[in-house]
């Protein structure tokens, strides 16, 4: 048999759990976004390096 305190605790735990799950999902999405940004940074750096590479000198 659950007493009144148990029901009150359960209700507030539900509220906190919902908020935490939501924040957790947001954090997961944020880490994905961060990874995507790192990839883009790498790609941009690669493109810059290709652009700045000296033309091969013609021999003969």
């Amino acid at each position, binding site marked *: 048999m659950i007493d009144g305190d148990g029901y*009150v605790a359960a*209700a507030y735990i539900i509220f906190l759990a919902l908020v935490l799950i939501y924040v957790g999902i947001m954090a997961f999405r944020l880490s994905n976004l961060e990874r995507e940004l790192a990839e883009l940074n790498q790609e941009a750096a690669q493109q810059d390096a290709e652009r700045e590479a000296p033309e091969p000198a013609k021999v003969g």
Partner: protein
Amino acid sequence: MTLYGKGLRSLSIATAVVLTGAFLLIAFYAPEDADQGIIQKIFYIHVAMAIVALCGFTAGGVMGFMHLRTHDRRWDLRSYVAIHLSLILAVGVLLTGAVWAKGSWGSWWVWDEPMLVSFLIVFLLYATYQPLRFSIEDPERQSRYASVFAVVAGAFVPINFAAVRMADSFIHPRTLGTTTGGMPGEMMLTFLVTLVGVALLFVTLWKYEMAAKHARGQVKALRRRITGERASVVGGRSAAPQVHV
């Protein structure tokens, strides 16, 4: 360009402070109800979430109306996020309500109580919002139909609420009722602080979500510029509105 992250830090701190204060008031300041005892303390979070969820649904309708009026896709995104968050709060309302009902009435759910059934109808109505969006592939049509849904459903919410309050009550108490003489001062203060806390939480999470979606849109635009991909290739099918930067 709109920056949704602006002011987020101070808003987050205010939310944390007010919600912590509300929980302290609930635990140590608010008196126990003479009739229900300690279990009545569920009321503070349950009703605050319900009011904020219903206001969020209505705000989603107003934002949908703004989208239809201005054809600005940002209003559709704002409406989408408001409805999405309200739906999460509505889940919380149903769950905390079920816990309260079990402790108070001995049953998880009562079908002959208009307040409960009407809230369930509102919840189920809005539960169709995401599938509706996902079923429409064309982004332009998707946002237009979703806005029409948001306006109609948003208008239904206050009408439904008023109808339920006018109906004969069975066992569910009428919050802030005038016939019963209202709540004692300590209870009212605790309730108002909790309501402000939950409302601040809603606004904070709304801004977080908007900032995240905006940042994702910017990353997509950056990817298009770097890799030369077309928007349609990068976008794909989604229930969420696409952010155009």
